[in-house]
């Protein structure tokens, strides 16, 4: 355990330390401006003189202002503890029904993610089954499915939102649609690989048992495809979350993690942006971990791991 954990902890600590070090030069200029207004001696005087100077030089000359860079209201780069305390305040100390609670916003985004993920995965599996069983479908659809992965699909997110809006579909569904679209293709490609993973011998064996196509699908192809499916599900659920977040951007949504990002960037509330970002990271990590857990349990039960 320590063999694995120690290097990981070291890297995380190093990243945190680098973050703290970066906070000082990033925030020094506004910290100096505030200090000057409060009457402190700043070298050189006047925000205008300092504008084009290097930040590291300013830090060296005005080391008294370093503590102030860690506690600004709207820093260019908030310190880790500021983000952590904002996260704590907006998750634990607020009621989860409050509009300022990040749990509330995360749930809005999460529900769209999960709905879209379920739709996308279901459709993806269906299409993959079709592709494996029909040669014509395989040859017509598969090249497009692979090519579509090189296309920045996310670019059509605003259009989907607005078009669905104009035909009267609002709220959860348009976002879920984008999530579904993003998780669809990884699942198709992975599942086709998975459904094809049984080898000749195994398929021939089922043929000698006189099993129908449906039976070989249920008893051989689907179980054999599970490791591939889970690998795609991990990619798909992360993509779904990104889709739901980006889906919240174009309509100027007021609820959801994407809306928090957008509002934060409009009003310069950097701490709010960073805490929404970390909340999104936590949600993404939990979703991927959850899929990983289900994967381990299922494969163990089936004797595949």
């Amino acid at each position, binding site marked *: 355990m320590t063999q*694995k954990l*120690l*290097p*990981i*902890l*070291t*890297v*995380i600590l190093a*990243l945190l330390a680098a973050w703290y070090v970066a906070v000082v030069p990033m925030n020094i200029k506004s910290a100096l401006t505030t200090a000057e207004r409060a009457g402190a001696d700043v070298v050189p005087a006047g925000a205008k003189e300092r504008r084009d100077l290097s930040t590291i030089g300013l830090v060296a000359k005005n080391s008294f202002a370093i503590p102030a860079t860690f506690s600004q209201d709207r820093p*260019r780069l908030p310190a880790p503890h500021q983000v952590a305390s904002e996260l704590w305040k907006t998750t634990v100390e607020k009621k989860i029904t409050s509009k300022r609670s990040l749990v509330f916003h995360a749930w809005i985004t999460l529900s769209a993610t999960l709905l879209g993920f379920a739709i996308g995965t279901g459709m993806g599996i269906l299409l993959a089954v079709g592709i494996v069983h*029909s*040669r*014509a479908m*395989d*040859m*017509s*659809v*598969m*090249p*497009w499915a692979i*090519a579509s*992965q*090189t*296309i*920045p699909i*996310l*670019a*059509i997110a*605003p*259009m989907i939102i*607005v*078009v669905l809006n*104009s*035909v009267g579909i609002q709220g959860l569904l348009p976002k879920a649609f984008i999530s579904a679209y993003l998780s669809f293709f990884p699942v198709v490609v992975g599942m086709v690989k998975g459904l094809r993973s049984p080898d000749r011998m195994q398929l021939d064996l089922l043929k000698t048992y006189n099993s129908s196509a449906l039976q070989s699908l249920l008893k051989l192809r689907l179980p054999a495809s599970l490791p591939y499916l889970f690998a795609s599900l*991990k990619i798909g659920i*992360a993509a779904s*979350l*990104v889709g739901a*977040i*980006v889906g919240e*951007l*174009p309509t100027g949504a007021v609820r959801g*993690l994407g809306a928090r*990002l*957008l509002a*934060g*960037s409009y009003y*310069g509330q*950097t701490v709010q*942006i*960073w805490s*929404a*970002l970390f909340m*999104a*990271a936590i949600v*993404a*990590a939990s979703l*991927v971990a959850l899929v990983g857990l289900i994967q381990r349990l299922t494969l163990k039960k089936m004797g595949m791991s």
Partner: protein
Amino acid sequence: MSIVFFSIVVWIAAWALNVKLANGTASGTRLVKVIVPTLFGLTLLLVWEMLVRGLNVPLVILPPPSLVIDTMADNLAILWKDFVQTFLKGALRGYLIGCSAAILTAFLVDRFDFLSRGLLPVGNFIAALPIIGTAPILVMWFGFDWQSKAAVVVVMVFFPMLVNTVAGLRETTAMQRDLMHTYAARPAQSFLKLRLPAAMPFMFNGLKISTTLALIGAIVAEFFGSPVVGMGFRISASVGQLALDMVWAEIVVAALAGSAFYGVVAIIEKGVTFWHPSQRGS
């Protein structure tokens, strides 16, 4: 209504032809392998065109493909400017900076086994996060022009590239390394002649993933603020004006750029890793 009926007939006829081609005697040939998906794509476009016309779908919901092509032809200059701003200035520069920074970091990290053991799980974790969310922060730091878009791209491609390179450099077996040792190869030699080539398939995997990420990053970052040029800006502005034909035109450009970018990297991969089983053909 007749045009709708006709489109269904076209669909069935084309599908029947595809089934015949796919199950026919010539189905293994290269020609059929190209014809079938092309026919499928063309049928899809044709049916789209006829359904939109036949059912009188409003332009603000779905423009027909012919109108999209018209719009593209009429606005070539604008589309080219957007392409230069978003792809050449934002995505491509960010891609080059991000990938080379990641590769250099991976080379450094690789010298310390302790670090690479720690960095792999952390990097894998970060690569799964919605990094695109850093776009508003980076737009705030680097301004509205291409610099902030390139920065978003750098952050987006860095970790997938880093993880792939580090994993690739650990790919050699003890046997292979021992062989280099018996040849009295210096560390630099065994790096250049054994470990770097062995890492190439992994690195190209990262480079290919990054092509798509780069375009997505550059386009989505423009939703958070941009000068009045760029693919992401044009998409969000045209959506606001309900000029969906322009949106589709930009999407076609994005799709072409994305596929071409990926294709170029894949061709380079073919040249560099010609020895790898996946490249030797079937």
